[in-house]
């Protein structure tokens, strides 16, 4: 951050009483020698000492960043008073100090929020990348299944299971009929042939029902698995997108980065809520509709006059243009 030496308002900034005065104007001169201040007032601490004090994590803020934030804070306040055309010289030094401090804290907070948001974004991006890779692999697998390359094993297991079930069911049916036959032979032997006929009808019906059920199960099973996977993936993706959205919103409110840039980014991602063009768009949609209606109408008129793409000038001996068909609508 540099001062403009030709800026007359700069001369009216009083040196702060408790801090070294700002360097004299000149190209490249800084508003406050923050680096020097930090050097003078800071204390060097060994990391082992911090560990002994029980500190496990420390926040790092570079001297350069601190300088930038402090200068920005002071500049904001000065700019504010310039804008008010009040003149900084008329404002008590204490007030400037207090406001600068407040502004610094706010900037520091937004810087920290932005840094956090950036970290969140990075994490979200990595998660999304991983997720997309997972989806890609899954898609390949599903395609392979659809092609029949991987279905053999799965289908074999299903068929084997069902075949056993069918055999067992058949055994049970036979057992039931045998038992009934034994009872009938003792009590009502003339009905045994009739029972045999019933058995001959019932057993194929049961087999057909089981086959149909197997098919239904096969289809339902596949669909449900696919749906579950998709739902799971969608949930994950939604969570990631929410995280990204939140992070981007934080960045967009930050003073540290250009709000315009961030808002453009949000707009590109479709995350911007406010649409400054909403009204304009409504009008445009109406114009698009009217233009399309006109194209239809004029297209019909031209066709009626024999003007087509293959004959854009119309028939050689063009008859008088046909009247457009009366359109009650």
């Amino acid at each position, binding site marked *: 951050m540099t001062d403009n030496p030709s800026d007359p308002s700069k001369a009216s900034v009083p040196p702060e009483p408790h801090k070294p005065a700002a360097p004299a104007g000149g190209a490249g001169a800084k508003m406050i020698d923050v680096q020097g201040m930090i050097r003078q007032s800071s204390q060097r601490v060994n990391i082992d000492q911090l560990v002994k004090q029980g500190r496990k994590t420390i926040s790092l803020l570079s001297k350069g960043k601190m300088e930038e934030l402090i200068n920005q804070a002071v500049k904001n306040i000065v700019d504010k008073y310039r804008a008010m055309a009040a003149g900084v010289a008329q404002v008590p030094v204490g007030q400037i100090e207090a406001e600068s401090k407040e502004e610094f804290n706010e900037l520091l907070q937004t810087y920290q929020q932005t840094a956090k948001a950036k970290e969140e974004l990075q994490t979200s991006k990595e998660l999304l990348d991983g997720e997309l890779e997972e989806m890609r692999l899954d898609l390949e697998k599903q395609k392979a299944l659809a092609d029949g390359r991987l279905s053999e094993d799965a289908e074999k297991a299903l068929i084997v299971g069902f075949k056993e079930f069918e055999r067992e069911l058949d055994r049970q049916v036979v057992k039931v009929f045998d038992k009934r036959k034994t009872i009938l032979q003792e009590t009502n032997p003339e009905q045994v042939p009739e029972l045999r006929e019933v058995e001959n009808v019932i057993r194929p019906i049961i087999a057909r029902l089981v086959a149909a059920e197997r098919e239904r199960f096969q289809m339902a099973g596949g669909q449900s698995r696919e749906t579950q996977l998709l739902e799971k993936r969608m949930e994950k993706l939604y969570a990631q997108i929410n995280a990204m959205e939140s992070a981007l919103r934080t960045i967009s409110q930050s003073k540290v980065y250009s709000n315009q840039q961030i808002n453009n980014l949000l707009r590109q991602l479709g995350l911007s809520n406010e649409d400054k063009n909403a009204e*304009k768009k409504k009008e*445009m949609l109406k114009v698009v509709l009217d233009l399309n209606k006109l194209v*239809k109408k*004029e297209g019909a008129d031209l066709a009626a006059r024999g003007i087509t793409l293959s004959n854009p000038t119309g028939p050689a001996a063009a008859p008088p243009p046909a009247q457009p068909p009366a359109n009650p609508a």
Partner: protein
Amino acid sequence: MAPEAEIAGRTTKEGVLYIGMDLGCYKTSVAATNGTREVTQSIVGWPKDPVSRKMLGKDIVFGDEAVKHRLALDTIRPFEKGALKYADNAEAGVKPERLAKFKEAAKELVKHVVQLCRPPKGTLVYGVIGSPARASILNKQALMDACKGTFEAVMIVSEPFAVAYGTNTLEDALIVDIGAGTTDLCRMHGAIPTEEDQITSGKAGDYIDNMAMDLIAKAHPMAQFTINMVRDAKERGSFVNDVNDKAMVKWPNKEGKPTDFDITMQLKEACSAIVPDIVAGLRKLVSSYDAEFQKRMLQNVILAGGGSQLRGLDRLIEKDLEQYGGGKVTRVHEPVFAGANGALKLAADMPEDYWKEVK
């Protein structure tokens, strides 16, 4: 009919699939409200004889598959050289007796692309299609005809306007949509662009391919190659700025032996050839605009379309704009889908009543 219900004055749009489509001379991209985003080559092929039909197992093939089996097919690129889209028959080199086949191909291509979106049975399909800025009423009508039977309702919008709508740059912006057949430039000033706001240049993707082909043929007379091979090389290694990348290809020489050829200079020269027209067009659009807003407009030049993927194109245009006081050129996030995305946004924003009026 789609189930619709009026809830608190709002119409639910269940059962409607909105589609945005960019029918390009070379590639067609599509985006739909069910999340589909596909791009396919704008080519349709019919098997030449029963043998090829049996081999392909289909009566009609599209896109990459049609390119792959083109020797066994009668292929048509329905929008090639602007056919149907912005040129009349003579201009596009379409013989009058072939026009019906071109129209059929266009219809089939539209149907195929909509099928790629997998609309559930019984769903209403509403679409917005991009058309070049210079399309005539007859061209627009031809596009609408191609959509008949596939869409319940369709609307046509200018391609650069679709891009502007999609990127929400409706004011003080210049859109440059570089396709295969044309480069469309459009001035956005908060209203639907009129003819005066749009300029179309014939120097676009195809122009680069043809020029590169000539230059390479001159520089490497021993190389054997086709326009498709040149296009492929361009898509993989095209750039216009001074970068250290080399465009190397392994093509057969006259003896059929695969040989390395350096086509860096030829590709670069061909790719750069479209820039002067773009800059001249931008300048023309800006200079005829309100002087107060000219600078702001130059700071908001948006590049879209497949051709905008040429590496360094944004910087090269910026460099050329310096003579007019400088400008800022930005490439859209997804150049190939920019038109389709914008058309989809238009379709989705379009009130339900409007669709009924164009059915």
